[in-house]
């Protein structure tokens, strides 16, 4: 009898131990809103592509949820006193998925590839680097043409992703068909529009923190279908839950919802001096643009279109960002002020404005709400809905009065501003030009300390909010929904899914 008892207890303890085992290695299935483009960090340009890279390719540095730069493949770095040299110490014992060792030579080869590959979309991001010098197996010195405060932030994204130099040399521009990096998962297979499968890389330097055998990314564009898949258990996690589906997801006890305000913005860009069409009252008189801004109730817009899930915005960064200028908080609607400004500009009886808008549901809904609000002040907005490629072409050619468009956002504040407001800015489709703004933006780019830079951006934002070549409306909130067996997921403002330390516990 005692034997039986012991056996029973042993069995029970054993069974408990089994069921309580916290980590179950499995295939993690993640639904993406769209299919990634080419899987080459130097060539790619889509947001979902970056989500795949977060599991596939390690970067020199990473960020914290508070946007601080932390080590990844580079363990430490030091900038010379004059700001033109960055010396980096690299992590030892790292190998690429094809067995090529990661070292200073590999970093040099990667920077060269990003700068010289014809198809590279990273050239402008690494423009400040004029040379690299390998000073040890695990030490590299980057020489800069001029001090560049934005460089480390660039290296925390695609420009800092390290691909195997051996594989890159062999494949050339076709590298994306079979990407080889050094991240926690290696590339297994891709079926366009169906799935991207990655398998756990056994020799990953931080392999202990990776608790899934494989991860499969499935593009499922329809938000309802994406959520249905999560509810039926066909997928484990999804990104970009529609704000309108929040209530349904939150009501499901098997689903956890997490969110983070993004780094980017959405707004209305005005044509100030881009060709003939810029020569109109809206381009010539900032009071009209100010009037429109006063006429908009940004919080109401957020409530109506996004059920309050996004963040109302009036600056190029959300109020959660350390770069936000707190002297100019988001204010409510002020129709009287808007009307007064219109009258001052000579349009007391109202004025027409033509806004081009991408032909999808959300931008149209946003602009219809803005249209209704503006009408209260006497601004008669007509909306021209265009397919995105057309909208972009017209905007860049100056064939528009105002355009509803946004920016996905960058870690460094420079990325959300410099190219839009400086006279020679690459995507300054407003053709806004102000010597003071150029000076501030250039100074902020090379600023030595964060405090110094913050002061420059604060000043620049004051001018931006007065000139309003971009009228900011809101900031997207990334919303992830996942099976409640997933533990340890951390939402990041860059919208990425980092799987280090994430576990599956049933």
């Amino acid at each position, binding site marked *: 009898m005692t034997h039986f008892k012991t056996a029973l207890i042993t069995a029970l303890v054993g069974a408990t131990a089994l069921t309580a085992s916290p980590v179950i290695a499995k295939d993690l299935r993640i639904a993406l809103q769209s299919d990634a483009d080419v899987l080459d960090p130097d060539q790619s340009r889509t947001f979902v592509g970056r989500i795949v890279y977060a599991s596939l390719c390690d970067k020199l540095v990473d960020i914290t949820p508070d946007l601080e730069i932390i080590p990844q493949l580079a363990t430490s770095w030091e900038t010379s006193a004059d700001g033109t040299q960055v010396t980096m110490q690299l992590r030892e014992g790292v190998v690429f998925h094809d067995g090529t060792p990661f070292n200073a030579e590999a970093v040099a080869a990667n920077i060269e590839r990003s700068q010289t590959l014809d198809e*590279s979309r990273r050239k402008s991001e690494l423009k400040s680097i004029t040379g690299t010098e390998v000073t040890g197996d695990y030490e590299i010195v980057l020489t800069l043409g001029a001090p560049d405060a934005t460089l480390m932030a660039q290296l925390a994204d695609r420009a800092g992703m390290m691909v195997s130099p051996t594989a890159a040399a062999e494949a050339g521009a076709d590298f994306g068909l079979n990407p080889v990096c050094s991240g926690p998962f290696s590339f297994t297979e891709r079926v366009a529009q169906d799935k991207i499968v990655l398998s756990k890389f056994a020799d990953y330097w931080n392999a202990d923190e990776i608790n899934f055998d494989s991860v499969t990314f499935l593009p499922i564009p329809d938000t309802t279908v994406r959520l249905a898949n999560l509810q039926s258990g066909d997928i484990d996690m999804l990104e970009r839950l529609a704000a309108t589906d929040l209530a349904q997801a939150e009501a499901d006890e098997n689903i956890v919802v997490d969110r983070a305000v993004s780094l980017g913005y959405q707004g209305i860009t005005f044509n100030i001096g881009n060709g003939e069409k810029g020569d109109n009252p809206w381009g010539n008189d900032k009071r009209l643009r100010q009037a429109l801004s006063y006429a908009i109730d940004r919080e109401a817009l957020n409530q109506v279109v996004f059920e309050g899930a996004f963040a109302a915005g009036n600056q190029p960064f959300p109020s959660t960002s350390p770069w936000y200028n707190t002297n100019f908080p988001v204010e409510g609607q002020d129709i009287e002020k808007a009307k007064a400004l219109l009258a001052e500009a000579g349009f007391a009886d109202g004025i027409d404005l033509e806004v081009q808008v991408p032909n999808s549901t959300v931008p149209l809904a946003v602009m219809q709400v803005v249209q209704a609000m503006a009408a209260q002040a006497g601004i008669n907005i007509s909306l021209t809905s265009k397919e995105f490629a057309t909208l972009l072409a*017209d905007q860049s050619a100056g064939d528009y009065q105002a355009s509803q468009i946004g920016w996905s956002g960058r870690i460094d504040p420079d990325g959300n501003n410099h190219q839009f407001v400086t006279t020679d800015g690459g995507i300054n489709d407003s053709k806004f030009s102000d010597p003071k703004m150029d000076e501030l933006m250039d100074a902020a780019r090379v600023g030595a300390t964060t405090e110094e830079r913050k002061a420059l951006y604060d000043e620049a934002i004051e001018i931006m909010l007065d000139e309003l070549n971009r009228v900011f409306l809101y900031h997207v909130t990334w919303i992830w929904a996942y099976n409640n067996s997933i533990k340890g997921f951390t939402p990041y403002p860059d919208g990425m899914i980092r799987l280090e330390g994430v576990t599956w516990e049933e």
Partner: protein
Amino acid sequence: MLRFLFRRILIALPTIVIISIFVFLLQKLLPGDPLLVLAGEERDPEVLEFLREKYRLNDPIPVQYFAWITNALQGDLGTSLRTGQPVTELMAEKLPVTIQLAVMSMIFALVIGIPAGILSAVKKGTATDYVANVVALSGLSIPNFWLGIMLILLVSVKWQLLPASGYVPLSEDFGQSIRTMLMPSFVLGTALAATLMRHTRSSMLSVLSADYVRTARAKGLSERVVVLKHALRNALTPIVTLSALLFGELVAGAVLTEQIFTIPGFGKLVVDAVFNRDYAVVQGIVLVTAVGFIFMNLFADAMYFVLNPRLREA
């Protein structure tokens, strides 16, 4: 018969040439610059210029067309601007998926449409006829996307019987592959079944009043033999044409169905390519689909010979 087919193929050739020009020009007529989207958010002018050169967009349009058609004739339809994969490879990857969807949908359509059509013709004016008509009409009127989402919510989310979306190749897991395709092919199949049912019904009705059917009945043949053996065979001729023409509807329907159920087939490929301005893919697919359509019609013509002996002598 061979001469007839040969003549048909000769007529088809200029059609294909015209289609190829049309497909190519349509892409060029679309407003907007595809490269602005492809160059990335920063729209680096250097990258833009490189891409323009690479995809020969600086050449005059006729030069671009001849370069494309010459390569196409050699089986090279270019590479996807978005993923860098060769278009022919993409199509080879997607074609089996859509064929599986099309075949399964057609089975649904035929199994529902033809018996319903026969039944409602034979029982004309009765309750059965009306019920069949109402069912057919709803099949035609309910939009695919609505029916699809309702089925997903009911069958996958609520009952958890079938996968909500996606695709598993037949070779990988036969059972699972059929299971994932059941809902999409049902959605696509019901819409076609309605058309088939209406046509079978009217075709059967006209045949059933023909003299030879009366003769067959007078011979004392059972109603079953009269309907299935004598009437149906003749009534089927127009149905075969229709089924071939429905192929077009099937491809069009697949575009929507694949989008809802996230099936990585031809339809989804073309929609995504249009949205992403991946014009090498769009041109390739439209060309191949058009040629496929022409061949389906040729096939239908050939089927007449098999079904109708009188044509063979003509």
